[in-house]
């Protein structure tokens, strides 16, 4: 571990970062900022993974971070393509406007 920094501190930082990401997804209207917030949440999870991998001396934590990053890359490619497609069709990326399926 980092000298003088315990696992708890890293987990608290990770939790606060995750909450900020969740807040961003919930309150923002712009789809791209929601995307950035999702990246923040994934990073918070990665931080917790790396912290645990370090404190337990385990390999699987790092492998999981690796896969999380791969999934994040795929997610961002698809998501941004969807945003560009929505923008092209409707001229807006305000998520409040995309409500055709609302009953």
């Amino acid at each position, binding site marked *: 571990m980092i000298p003088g920094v315990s696992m708890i501190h890293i987990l608290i930082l990770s939790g606060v970062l995750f909450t900020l990401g969740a807040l*961003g997804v919930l309150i923002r209207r712009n789809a791209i900022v929601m995307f950035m*917030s999702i990246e923040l949440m994934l990073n918070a999870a990665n931080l917790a993974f790396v912290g645990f991998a370090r404190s337990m001396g385990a390999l699987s934590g790092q492998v999981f971070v690796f896969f999380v990053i791969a999934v994040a*890359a795929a997610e961002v490619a698809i998501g941004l393509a969807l945003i560009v497609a929505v923008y092209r069709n409707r001229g807006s990326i305000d998520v409040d406007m995309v409500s055709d399926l609302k009953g």
Partner: protein
Amino acid sequence: MTLAQLIFLAAAAVTLVAAIMVVTSPRLIHAGLWLILSLAGIAVLFILLDNGFLAVVQVAIYIDAIAILIIIAVMLTRAVMSDADRQINRMGLAAAFASLILLAGLLAMVLQVPAASPAPLVEAEVNLDALGRALVDVDGFILPFEVASVMLVAALVGAILVAMAPARGD
């Protein structure tokens, strides 16, 4: 206070402040730049946790690829949503309240983690050799590894299809 503690505090503060700016910044392009700073703070934390390899991956994939892709998307869709528009949706207050509950739940859970697992730490360096072997070992993670590569190809081809401009004359 040791040097490592100082660096940890500084990196944590930079990461959190940048994350707050991502969530609250009214200008999209600024939010994207703050996101890069936040990701860089995480990379510093990875280095502090003796995981230089993942720090490099973080910089190469998150900052280099993902953040730049997001900023390009901001530029492509820039003219639509003026920065002066209302940025917060109708349920903003309820959402903030829900996030507070989420934070309380997370902290309550985190504080139950057995304190000070005595950091066994066999070798100071992360064992990159073992990581590479585990990824392609039949008893390790070769199946998820191959599935991830297929998924990436599928996702990128799909992204091209979704974002492709409709053919003329449709």
